[in-house]
């Protein structure tokens, strides 16, 4: 098994690591793409949001200014008219009280209204008194003028109290300008007190401090704010630069931002203030409040916009990193679990490579890896089966080859012996051939001798017959002797019976003697006579015993003698029989010799003929044997080659066994 553990990039040495790296790369790419997209979207969104906010805020501020100005101006003008009406009412009261005359009172009212200071409203606005018919009774410029034909005057005379806005073009002016008037009607004199002012001068009429305070509270982001600038570049409201004229200010790029705003009147502009660097650049939404010729703007610093994005970016990166680490750990664990069977398979594969086929991968699930494990097990099992069969076959082969080798060697050895033996036979046959030839010569000599022997044998045969007859006579008489002796033996046996009876009597007598003696002893003195009787009986018994003893001895002697006699006679008979048989044999022998000698002569010729035939046969046999010897020599050579071949086969079987033995097999079914 190749050791790949030290090869390749360290990151790619294991499947787990590969998967982790791959996963990390994918994760990073995915997350980075996602983050970038998200940040881009976020940035746009934030910008858009901020832009919207700026729009809204600017609109709101414009509306706020408008509302404030309008309401303030309205209240101011009405208030001025009311206050003047109050003075008029005072003077009327004085008139009515008689303190002053009506003309005096009217005069005072006119002086009040036309006061060069008190009668001014704003820069060019003024107070006036208009009667119910629309005649300008009191007017700084055109007193007594009839303005009833003007639409606004019709409205005013109709209203008599309140607020009115209208456009007015003074004589010599080409463009009508927006004006507004506050009214308060003094009915006794039918006089509408009129306080008017050009809208463009409203800002001058107002106390803008609360508006300023409101605007100053507006914060967009950390540093962003709202401002109001007039058409000449004067900052009417600004958190830090109020009253400054910025018409000629330009930012770090050389942009005259104030002029741009006045020129464009509405839009978005990006600039940095004089003295600020590029990083302080801001985004400003501005719009023109035409009535008052004001530029209302709200700005937010890019720093504020980007700050959120930066936080989001930082958060995204950190969270992505954390997610990457956690995901990697989980991936590692999961992959480790999944690749465990693969690791086991790898180990088993190593073992199989080293020859151990006994192991198997445990299968604990049903997924693809488990299927692979099962297949792996099957493969190893099949290999094991093959190796087992191979082992068995190699053993059998080895044994067969061994036997073949041994038997080949034996055959070779036997063949060698056979070859040697055949060679000996050949040599012997050659000798026999020579011998046969010499025998033929001898036979002729024998034939002559046989004829002369025949006459002698016939004479001998006659003599033997005579002897035999005599032997028969002797045997007959011997048998008679033996019968006589046996009869004697039987008679002696019958004597033994008598002797035994006598023995029994002797024993009984002895017992009687004992008893008699006992009785005599028991009887004491009275038994003395009986003692004598007992003694005599005892003596009788003793002598009987002695006599029977002697009889026994004698009979024994007779028996021994007759036994000897019988034995001797039987031996004699045997000898006679043997003699008879010998004579019989002798006669037979003579007869045989005679017939043999007759045959001999005739046979001699036949033998000579046979011998010559035999010689011929011997020569043929010899030839055949020589051929056999050659054949055996060839066979020996062949078997030697076979032995050699068997030896090679044995070596092969050996090496095969050696190879197969390196494999270890288990006990799987």
């Amino acid at each position, binding site marked *: 098994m190749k050791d790949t553990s030290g090869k390749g990039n360290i990151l790619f040495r294991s499947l787990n690591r590969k998967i982790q790296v791959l996963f990390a790369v994918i994760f990073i790419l995915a997350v980075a793409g996602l983050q970038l997209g998200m940040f881009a979207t976020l940035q746009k969104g934030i910008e858009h949001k901020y832009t919207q906010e700026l729009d809204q805020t600017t609109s709101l501020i414009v509306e706020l200014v408008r509302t404030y100005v309008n309401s303030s101006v309205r209240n101011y003008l009405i208030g001025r008219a009311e206050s003047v009406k109050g003075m008029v009412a005072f003077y009327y009261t004085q008139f009515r009280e008689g303190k002053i005359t009506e003309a005096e009172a009217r005069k005072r009212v006119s002086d009040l209204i036309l006061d060069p200071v008190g009668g001014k409203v704003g820069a060019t606005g003024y107070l006036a008194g208009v009667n119910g018919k629309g005649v300008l009774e009191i007017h700084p410029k055109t007193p007594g003028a009839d303005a009833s034909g003007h639409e606004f005057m019709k409205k005013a005379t109709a209203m008599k109290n309140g607020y009115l806005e209208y456009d007015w073009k003074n004589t010599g002016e080409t463009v009508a300008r927006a004006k507004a008037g506050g009214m308060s009607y003094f009915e006794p004199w039918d006089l509408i007190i009129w306080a008017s002012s050009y809208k463009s001068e409203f800002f001058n009429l107002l106390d803008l401090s609360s508006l300023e305070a409101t605007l100053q509270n507006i914060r967009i982001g950390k540093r962003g704010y709202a401002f109001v600038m007039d058409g000449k570049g004067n900052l009417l409201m600004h958190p830090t630069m109020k009253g400054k004229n910025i018409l000629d200010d330009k930012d770090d790029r050389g942009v005259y931002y104030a002029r741009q705003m006045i020129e464009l009147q509405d839009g978005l502009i990006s600039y940095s203030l004089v003295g600020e660097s590029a990083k302080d650049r801001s985004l400003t939404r501005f719009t023109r409040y035409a009535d008052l010729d004001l530029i209302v703007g709200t700005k937010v610093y890019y720093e504020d916009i980007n700050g959120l994005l930066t936080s989001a970016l930082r958060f995204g990166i950190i969270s992505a990193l954390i997610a990457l680490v956690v995901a990697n750990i989980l991936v590692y664990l999961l992959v480790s679990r999944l690749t465990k069977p693969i690791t086991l398979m790898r180990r088993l594969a190593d073992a199989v490579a080293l020859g151990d086929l006994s192991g198997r991968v445990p299968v604990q699930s049903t997924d693809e890896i488990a299927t692979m494990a099962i297949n792996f097990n099957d493969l190893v099992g099949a290999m094991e089966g093959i190796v087992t069969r191979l082992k068995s076959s190699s053993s059998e082969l080895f044994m067969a080859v061994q036997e073949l080798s041994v038997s080949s060697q034996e055959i070779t050895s036997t063949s060698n012996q056979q070859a040697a033996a055949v060679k000996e036979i050949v040599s012997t046959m050659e000798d026999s051939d020579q011998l046969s030839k010499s025998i033929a010569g001898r036979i002729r000599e024998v034939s002559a001798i046989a004829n002369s022997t025949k006459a002698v044998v016939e004479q001998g045969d006659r003599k033997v017959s005579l002897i035999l007859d005599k032997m028969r006579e002797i045997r007959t008489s011997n048998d008679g002797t033996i019968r006589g002796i046996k009869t004697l033996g039987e008679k002696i046996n019958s004597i033994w019976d008598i002797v035994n009876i006598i023995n029994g009597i002797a*024993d009984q007598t002895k*017992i009687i003697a*004992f008893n008699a*003696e*006992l009785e005599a*002893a*028991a009887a*004491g003195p009275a038994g003395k006579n009986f003692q004598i009787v007992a003694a005599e009986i005892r003596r009788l018994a003793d002598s009987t015993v002695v006599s029977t003893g002697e009889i026994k001895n004698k009979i024994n002697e007779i028996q021994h003698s007759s036994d000897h006699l019988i034995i001797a006679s039987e031996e004699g008979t045997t000898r006679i029989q043997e003699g008879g048989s010998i004579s019989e044999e002798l006669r037979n022998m003579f007869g045989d010799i005679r017939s043999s000698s007759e045959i001999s002569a005739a046979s001699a010729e036949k033998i000579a003929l046979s011998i010559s035939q035999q010689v011929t046969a011997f020569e043929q046999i010899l030839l055949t044997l020589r051929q056999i010897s050659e054949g055996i020599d060839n066979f020996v050579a062949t078997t030697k080659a076979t032995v050699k071949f068997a030896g090679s086969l044995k070596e092969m079987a050996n090496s095969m066994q050696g190879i197969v033995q390196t494999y270890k097999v288990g006990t799987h079914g």
Partner: protein
Amino acid sequence: MAEDGLVAKIREAGAGKDSDKVQEGELIFHKFIIAGVLNKRYAIPATVIREIVIDVPIHYVPFVPPYIRGFINRHGEPFTVVDMGVLFEQEETKERAFLVLNLDSDQLAFLVSDIHEIVKVPETDVYPITEKGEDGGYFSSSVRLGTEDVFIVAVEAVRKRLADDLGTP
């Protein structure tokens, strides 16, 4: 008085006391039956033997120890047969020679292999083989016969064995 002494002696001799001894002169003689049991010889005092019989049938009886072979009939009376071979050597006696004992208290016969002789020996040839009080088993003394010492069978010991085994007095 000399006559009284003589009468006393005669009376004494005639009373049959010590009739197992025979006094001849100054010597006292004892009579023994010498019997063969298997391959050994034993002496039995003649006075305890009533008769000697051979080749009579033994009638087997159960419920008895193995050395009791049964009964023999002696004049119509049953006599217990004690096989001396079994008693002494734990081997059955094949022969049938019986020493019928002369006992008042029982009817016993010893089965032996052979009856050799009756001997009369002087008392001086009878030797005790145990110390006084010692139990010699079936033999209390021996008798010198030529060069041979033959044990004398103590009949009482045999009777005692019988009584112990059967639980009879």
